């Protein structure tokens, strides 16, 4: 193929992904990842394809695998996408562990890795090690610190006291976020009256909640996973545990959460958030619902979407040359539903660190200086029966 052919470009772009359709990671994929991938492909192909520099529109073609929630399967599936299917780009799997497991393989073959669902404190090191890797979901410390700084503000404003109870899931996520929060809480003079972890898969968290209620903290923080988040909220409601700040982990931002608890969600805080009044965001929500039949979550879903928008725009600008796309992703500025995005050290700088359910929507409240940030409702209204 000579330069002419290159000029004309390919007549299709092959996109691959290997995500957990089965196993313990499947709920995460089904909530946050796969609907976005489907929507993305759908929208591109509905428009006739990705418009390359030449003006030509090329449709995308998908090769997908199931990594069965296993790191080993994921690695092999990626190798298969690279060497057998020879796809042009690979969309990342779900979760920190899996993204890191496939990192070396992406790196070895020069594929950009847009890790939009990995939260790791090592992200700054990893981007150095893997020049094609991009991290969108921040570090555990980021969330922990932002939450505590926010609490510090509210305490200074006299809205809350110093007593904090914290529980976290005994897993990379819980440990990272809990560790960060612990440090910063101490620095700011908060009193940590309860600080314990629980194993993944614990089916009954009521003993912890009961104990915490007895300690009457001002602030309750749970760095929890979706099923636990639901259980914790349920139990808090049952025993009438009403701290001024009620913060739960992943799952709080899911539509499921609102469906289950209805009006009671108002005032519950968590990580992530969204500027729901932004028309671009609203349009995204609408399309997501139309195409996939489900609503996106209010934390990682929009970010996954942003990463996809960026990938698309990068391809539009530089074509299917993966090195060029990586370079463009690292240095370019992109127009997304969350506004103009430019990565810093190949990491996303402008996350919503803290969000809160308000008026039936999970809205970003910190960083407070970010456009669209809402003031938090504190204290959280008491649970209604």
């Amino acid at each position: 193929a000579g330069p002419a052919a290159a000029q004309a470009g390919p007549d299709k772009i092959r996109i691959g992904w290997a995500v957990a359709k089965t196993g313990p990671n499947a709920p995460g994929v089904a909530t946050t990842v796969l609907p976005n991938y489907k929507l993305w492909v759908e929208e591109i192909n509905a428009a006739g394809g990705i418009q390359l520099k030449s003006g030509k529109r090329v449709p995308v073609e998908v090769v997908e695998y199931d990594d069965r929630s296993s790191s080993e399967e994921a690695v092999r599936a990626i190798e298969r996408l690279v060497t057998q299917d020879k796809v042009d780009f690979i969309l990342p799997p779900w979760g920190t562990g899996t993204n890191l497991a496939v990192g070396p393989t992406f790196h070895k073959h020069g594929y950009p890795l847009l890790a939009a669902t990995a939260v790791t404190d090592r992200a700054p090191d990893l981007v150095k090690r893997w020049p094609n890797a991009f991290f969108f979901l921040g570090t555990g410390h980021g969330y922990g610190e932002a939450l505590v700084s926010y609490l510090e503000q509210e305490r200074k404003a006299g809205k809350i006291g110093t007593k904090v109870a914290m529980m976290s899931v005994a897993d990379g996520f819980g440990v990272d976020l809990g560790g960060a929060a612990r440090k910063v809480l101490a620095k700011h003079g908060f009193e940590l009256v309860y600080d314990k972890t629980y194993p993944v898969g614990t089916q009954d968290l009521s003993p912890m909640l009961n104990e915490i209620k007895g300690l009457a903290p001002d602030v309750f923080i749970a760095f929890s996973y979706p099923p636990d988040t639901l259980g914790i909220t349920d139990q808090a409601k049952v025993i009438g545990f009403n701290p001024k700040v009620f913060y739960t982990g992943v799952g709080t931002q899911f539509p499921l959460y609102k469906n289950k608890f209805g009006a009671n969600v108002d005032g519950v805080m968590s990580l992530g958030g969204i500027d729901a009044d932004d028309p671009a965001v609203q349009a995204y929500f609408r399309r997501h619902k139309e195409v996939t039949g489900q609503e996106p979550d209010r934390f990682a879903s929009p970010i996954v979407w942003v990463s996809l928008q960026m990938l698309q725009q990068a391809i539009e600008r530089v074509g299917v040359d993966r090195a060029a796309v990586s370079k463009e992703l690292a240095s370019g500025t992109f127009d997304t539903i969350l506004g103009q995005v430019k990565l810093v050290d190949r990491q996303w700088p402008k996350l919503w660190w803290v969000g809160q359910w308000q008026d039936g929507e999970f809205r970003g409240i910190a960083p407070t200086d970010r456009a669209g940030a809402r003031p938090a409702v504190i204290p959280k209204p008491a649970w209604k029966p």
Partner: protein
Amino acid sequence: MNALPSPAAAGNSTGAGRLALQALAVAGLALLAALPWLGADDYLIAVGINILQYGVLATAWALFSGPTRYVSLATVAFFGIGAYTAAVFGETLPWPAVLAAALGVSLVLALIVGLATLRLSGVHFVIFTFGLAELVHQLVNWYEVNVTRTLGRYLFVDISQVQIYWQLLALLVAVLATGWAIRRSRLGLALQVIGDDEVVARHVGIDTTRAKLLLFAISAGFIGLAGAAMAPRWTYIDPAIAFNPVISFQVLIMALLGGANRLFGPLLGVLPVALLFELLSGSFPNHFMILLGLVFMAIVYFIPNGLFGLLERRRQRAGKEGGK
């Protein structure tokens, strides 16, 4: 529960047939060894790694569970501990030392576990070993969270895929050689006797605890080594990844399918199951589970006694017809 059919029920292979099979196996191993030079790409190597990994695990599993009929679900405890040891020491110790450490840790764990478990039998042993693997998982988890305060370890070492492949291949050869040697030893007979009737075993002078413990440890050692060898493939290792119980089940299923009472039986199960998984998950990512389930059930209904049993019956029939 005597979950495994007796060796006699699995049929007796003729001397010539066995020789042919062994020759085939040796040829197969040689081919596998040459694979990286035959221009196999990363994916093929990855498939090879997968097959070898389960080959080592299933063969090592059957080393103990085949003759004694103690069906263990603790495979992943040793695999995980091996992987975890590699994750802990991988970046500080030279690789051979890492492997040695993994071996040592699995052996120690196997001895502790063995002493506690081996008086149980049947399904109680099965579930006990499952519980044990989970306990190890939970304890490692708790230790990491509360003592080291880092959950999830990063393992960046300079080991290529092909090197992993060769390590596993060497392990497989070692397991097979060990199994071969045990079969020909007093220990092998002792295990057969134990598998049949443990009371009798004691009454013919077999120190059953020692025999079982010894073999359990040998089996666990290989499994732990396999875990260590695999660890560099994942970069990030946390207890949930290392102690994924699916591995225990998969090993069990593969070995049972192939035939746990024969040295090459487990391998015979690994090959089709691994390839089947690969094929189905590649071609039908959304219907993988359904198809796999159907295929599995078909195997059970149409290929009783495992694949080895099938092969042997075929051969016996062919032998008879040829003789006429």
